[in-house]
């Protein structure tokens, strides 16, 4: 099957991990500035999976409802990026971002705004870094906050016959004294993934040169 044929080679995976790590590294420093506390983000693993599989990966791990910040991107390759948290984590994140002083009411009010901002920082850092490193430009939409289960987030209901692929990045979040974890998922169709693979190869050729 064609859709299964998009797999990344070892160097491609290294390169993409490196690139995304630069992105989350930037995101971490931005968050550090926002939270004023030690934040470590790293991307230890990258997978390309089907949309259904991605939904299952998350639902197996996270029983609770989820919150996601969504940003669509378009350019050399197109897709939709999701920063996903368990809903119970999101307030914790909001509290971390906004400080301890807010009441629960204010916190709830601030939630959307804080999540949008956090998501924007992280997703933007990643996407912009990828685009930058691959010497392409990507246009990004304004982030949106979604609530729902993993099936809803991955729009499985609307994709009956077309099961798109997802570039699935696990991120280890470590925010001191906070229980926060999350995932980044980039939903792309096969042509977009093929394009990404191609650009990664270009990048590798460029930095590795004759050693490749």
């Amino acid at each position: 099957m064609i859709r299964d044929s998009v797999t990344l080679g070892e160097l491609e995976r290294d390169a993409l991990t490196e690139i995304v790590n630069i992105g989350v590294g930037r995101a971490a420093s931005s968050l550090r500035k926002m939270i004023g506390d030690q934040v470590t983000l790293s991307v230890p693993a990258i997978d390309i999976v089907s949309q259904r599989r991605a939904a299952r990966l998350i639902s197996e791990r996270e029983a609770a409802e989820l919150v996601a910040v969504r940003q669509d991107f378009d350019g050399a390759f197109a897709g939709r990026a999701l920063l996903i948290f368990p809903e119970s984590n999101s307030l914790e994140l909001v509290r971390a971002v906004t400080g301890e002083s807010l009441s629960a009411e204010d916190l709830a009010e601030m939630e959307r705004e804080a999540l949008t901002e956090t998501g924007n920082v992280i997703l933007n850092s990643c996407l912009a870094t990828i685009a930058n490193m691959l010497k392409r430009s990507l246009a990004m939409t304004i982030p949106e906050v979604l609530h729902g289960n993993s099936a809803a987030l991955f729009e499985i209901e609307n994709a009956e016959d077309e099961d798109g692929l997802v570039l699935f990045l696990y991120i280890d979040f470590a925010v001191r004294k906070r229980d926060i974890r999350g995932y980044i998922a980039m939903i792309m169709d096969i042509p977009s993934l093929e394009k990404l693979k191609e650009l990664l190869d270009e990048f590798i050729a460029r930095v590795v040169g004759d050693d490749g």
Partner: protein
Amino acid sequence: MAEAGAEQVRSILAAAGASGSWDWDIAADALRIDTRFAELYGLEPESAVGDLPTATFFAAIHPADRPRIRIAVAGMLAGAERFSKEFRVLAPDGSTLWMHGRGQAHLDENDAPVRFTGLLIDVTERKRTEERLRIAQSAGGVGTFEYSDGFATATVSTEFCQLLGLHPAAVLPVRTINSVLCDGEPLLLPQPGSDSIGDTLDAVFRIVRNDDGSHRWIARRGEVVREGSGYRLIGVIYDVTAAKEQEAKLRELADTLEMRVQQEVAERREAEEALRQAQKMEAVGQLTGGIAHDFNNLLTVIIGNIDTVVRRMDMEHDPRMRRSLENALKGAERAASLTQRLLAFSRRQPLEPKTIDIARVLTGMSDLLTRSITETIAIRIDTDAELWKVEVDPHQLENAILNLAVNARDAMPSGGGLTIEARNVEVQDARPGGCLPGAYVVVSVTDSGTGMSPETVAKVFDPFFTTKEVGKGTGLGLSMVYGFVKQSGGHITIDSAEGRGTAVRLYLARKQQDVLLEIEERRPSARMGNADETILVVEDDDDVRAYTVGILRELGYQVVEAQDGDGALRLLGGHDVGATLLLTDVVMPRMSGPELASRAKALHPELRVLFTSGYTRDAIMRDDRLDPDVDLLSKPFTYATLAAKVRELLDRGH
């Protein structure tokens, strides 16, 4: 001054184990290195003082590692914050050293990287240790893992991945690791929301390997390292499937062993119980048989003498005396029938088995049954259409069935149903104390009466055991049935439960040769003898002998008598005695009846022999049955039965 400072830094770095340091000036696109770096790379020491092309950084790196490092460095130049890579460096002396390059980016106020500095640390020793560890792991089939509380991933070894059938990776999502577990297993590594970790990691898990789908057992061992409020898990996993399978096999073996032992013990207990029961019946049989034998002799005398008195006296003159004598005779006859039953139980009654059709026996009994059983009880007789033939004594069988029917009646004081059935049954499996495999006609007598407790059932065949009121039963009915069936080579079972009625089944062996003999009715009649017919009576009991001789003389026979075998043979040897018939007791001291008979026959081949016996087990019976060639008169006999039997023998001819 600057030189001294640099020297100081160098010695600090050397002490720290650093093999070199670099300073990559991104803005100037130049690389600066220290003397150790230069040495390591095989560069002139003076290289350490000036700017070098940045490509120098990759020059000594092993070609296989170079692309990876180039990508990582490209990341640093593009704004990544930290550099931490291990790679091989080809040293000038030809050796390959493992280096851990650790560096960091220096950003300007716009977060743009301007410098990339770092250290090279020789980790060759550690790499070798790791190599040994890796080999130890793969050789020992041990996979390692390290997990930090709160992270979604764990650091694992190649062997770890292989044990779980996962694609080898240094870092795996915890979810992926746990996904190999079978349903219902605890988690291999904690996931968010899982229970807090215990003090030990020791556990065994069932998994389905991700690659080949095989089911395996995986053991986990390790330590929980507490760090502040969190913890780290460091441990190993290894495959224990073989041990588990062995264990399961052993357990199964142990389980079935226990079961088999239990079964064996139960069988033995059953066999012992059956043996005990058989021994008890045998012992009681010996006892009752012995008593009955003596009783029979006494009764023969009593009955015979009363009989004689009744016949000789002119009763018309004294009706009262006649009534008394008749009552005495009745009592004696009842006593005789009682001893008959005792003999039946002790399997010492002479049986005259015939090949019979039980269906016809039952049909013939229906009138008798109807008369014996009260009207409140519905009798049903049902037999298989093509019932097999059996070889039993028909009179005793009738007796047994009637006995069972009467018992059934007594168990149903307020009415009910009595079913007598005869069925062809093939018994397949032998059971201890049970019926041997074979073909049987099973006669069952079933009632819907009060039934019996298991304790009662256990004793029901014992002689003199009765559930009836004192005086209502002899306690010999079922004992007699039991003895009869056993003596006929059959088997008897009883099923009963309180309130649910009783079923007694008689298993009578199928007679293969289905030649049906008509049951001949024998009506004893007193027929007189002739004086030229001489009868030799041999009997050790003087009273019985006197009685017997008296009858025979009364009948008109010439009688000579002897009290044992030797005396008899002496008489037969004399020329003055031309005996026609030898009437001898079976059981006698010194010489038994059959022995005497055979020796007498040797002297006088024409001599006819009639045995008399209270019981006939000892010598006259073969296979517990009467030898067809032998004529037997059961004790106690009366005037009429003796007369008829003697006449029959003398008239039979040869």
